[in-house]
């Protein structure tokens, strides 16, 4: 396993294996993956909290225009506070986006056997055609979701 979505399976195997065959494997052999995830957390803290950008992220004017029509303004955070916000978590649209979206990330990456790093970077760079299939499909479905489903949820 050469991808970050593998860490999700590992945490499941470590914490709630529940006798599921797919979660019974030698996860200790891939402990480095958990250190990598810890590194991502620390890197996020250094880059996002200690070195928090002083200006808003420069976005294309077209994107700013579309997002502002949904009430989302460009900001210094990497997530829009208008959606990702504890106070608004329990509106159904936000539940779909955060919990539904998160669930699909976990379910879909394992079903597809990898994510953007496992298929998109490791898989494509070693010229494996099944990875190309997975990458093409998650791009197509992402494009459709961002352009059609998300606008419905943010109306």
């Amino acid at each position: 396993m050469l991808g970050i979505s593998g860490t999700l399976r590992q945490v499941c195997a470590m914490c709630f294996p529940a006798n599921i065959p797919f979660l019974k494997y030698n996860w200790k052999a891939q402990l480095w993956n958990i250190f990598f995830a810890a590194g991502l957390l620390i890197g996020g803290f250094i880059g996002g909290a200690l070195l928090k950008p002083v200006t808003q992220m420069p976005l294309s004017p077209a994107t700013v225009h579309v997002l502002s029509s949904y009430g989302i303004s460009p900001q210094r955070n990497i997530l829009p506070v208008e959606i990702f916000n504890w106070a608004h978590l329990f509106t159904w649209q936000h539940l779909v986006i955060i919990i539904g979206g998160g669930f699909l990330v976990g379910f879909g990456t394992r079903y597809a056997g990898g994510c953007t790093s496992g298929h998109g970077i490791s898989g494509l760079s070693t010229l494996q055609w099944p990875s190309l299939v997975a990458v093409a499909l998650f791009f197509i479905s992402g494009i459709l979701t961002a352009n059609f489903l998300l606008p419905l949820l943010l109306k």
Partner: protein
Amino acid sequence: MKSEAVSWFRVQEMFRFQGFQMYGIFMTAIPTAALSIFILRKFKIKTLDGEPVQVRKKKFNWGYVYGGILFGIGWALTGACPGPIYVQIGSGLSIAIITLLSALAGTWTYSYLKPKLPH
């Protein structure tokens, strides 16, 4: 973090074809990975445990199709593939813990249903 590939905003821009940055990241990451693997093979570099570095060949199954479609929806909604979720939490956005717990629930559910799902 600083490349902004972990940003929900950048992901929306990418899926709307309104910016080049994400595509630029992929187009540099893939050749870099390919070059790294070439060097690992050329010099027969071993892992810390002394094993040769191997890249397992992936065998196609329909899970790549169904899973790919489902993951794409989740990616566009949360602006995160699994790696960025950790970065979002680290950067102090505590609500991303909910995204992570949901993703763990998704992985667990897949593991549970695996024998019954078409592949």
